[in-house]
């Protein structure tokens, strides 16, 4: 059974929607800025659902007023890592919240190979299941280039 036949990673917000355009990303970012969130850009080539800590692209951007600054950083990251997953995250520093409140993917590799289900037979007839992304089949230095 395939629950996600087009193979798109669905993580964070808007991931069931078609790719957001830059104008739409700007609107989302501006919404966050108006609420006082600090945006940051992160990237990874290992899209495992449990891989929550992606690599930071630069520092989180505090004290921004306009979405153009964030978009500049996103485009910079896209240029550097065109075949990586790139996501935008908004940090809410309100006391008691102090966490990420928005997160969505703004860049994907051209080909998203999806995941393999690995079955491990253990004691008795027990089977343990593992999800393994095909994206990490190759060593890190060779991923993304095709």
């Amino acid at each position: 059974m395939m629950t996600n036949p087009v193979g798109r990673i669905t993580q964070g917000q808007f991931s069931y929607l078609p790719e957001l355009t830059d104008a739409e990303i700007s609107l989302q970012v501006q919404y966050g800025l108006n609420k006082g969130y600090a945006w940051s850009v992160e990237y990874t080539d290992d899209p495992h659902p449990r891989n929550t800590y992606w690599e930071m692209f630069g520092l989180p951007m505090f004290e921004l007023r306009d979405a153009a600054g964030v978009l500049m950083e996103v485009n910079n990251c896209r240029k550097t890592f065109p075949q990586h997953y790139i996501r935008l995250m908004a940090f809410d520093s309100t006391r008691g919240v102090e966490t990420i409140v928005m997160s969505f993917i703004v860049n994907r590799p051209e080909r998203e190979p999806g995941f393999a289900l690995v079955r491990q037979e253990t004691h008795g007839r027990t089977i343990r299941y593992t999800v393994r992304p095909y994206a990490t089949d190759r060593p890190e230095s060779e991923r993304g280039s095709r």
Partner: protein
Amino acid sequence: MAAPLYQIPGQTASTAESATTEAAAAGTAVADPLQSARTVEEVLAQSQVSAVMDELDRDLIGLAPVKGRIRDIAALLVIDKLRMNLGLQAQAPSLHMSFIGNPGTGKTTVALRMAQILHRLGYVRKGHLIAVTRDDLVGQYIGHTAPKTKEVLKKAMGGVLFIDEAYYLYRPENERDYGQEAIEILLQVMENQRDDLVVILAGYKDRMDAFFRSNPGMSSRVAHHLDFPDYQPRELEEIAQRMLQSMHYRLSDSAIAAVHEYIPLRMQQAHFANARSIRNALDRARLRQANRLFAQKGRQLTRDELMTIEGEDIRASRVFT
């Protein structure tokens, strides 16, 4: 990967189509309230530019050439808005500026106003002013400059970036100075993201001229060179009155006469910094006034006495000796 059993709307074939409709939707979402205006008056009424211009006229004394240029720019932006409403091409003009003038001629004050005016005209989206100097842009070691400059630029997006004493960015005596790197990043953003921010370079006349001579790229990207003339003694008197008024002080008749004498004398002395010198002189006069009142310990002081600066407070200045 298996062929999809169903299609996510806008996934492959209809991507282009959906993208355009989305862009259009996004466009209307940030719709300009000025879009339907047809006359200059309508644009002015809706953008409240004239209020800012009046304020500029009222609050800032002298500076006629600067006000004239600001009016020109405002006029161009208003007409552009009308052209755009009628579907004529109105290419966003380059609005990077340089403010050139002696110390204390109001460069920073005007820059603040400029941010407001450009915001009301809808030229910059947020209308905030980020004031920086060399220290904020140029790093301490290799690889430090680019992130630092970019961070400042990101903060300034949607507003005005005011670079005070911009000529310090370029140090010709040291060819490995990191200032050059900051200038290159600035130039790139000034060129590519003209809609997103306006850069104002400020500095003193002779050194700014040298700066632009050695950075022709910068000079050609700055469309407006505004000269801030020195103030006349009469204007400085008016400025003094204005400053005191905002601090709830006033000059007695003898103090007015003293200020009248003080200003020409101060102007001949070294390190005269126009309005800034006047502000400092007034601050010292306030100290003397406080001292004078402090000496009369037993007496009840009236509101008037607390507000008034007397001639003797001014004349105690060492300018008169």
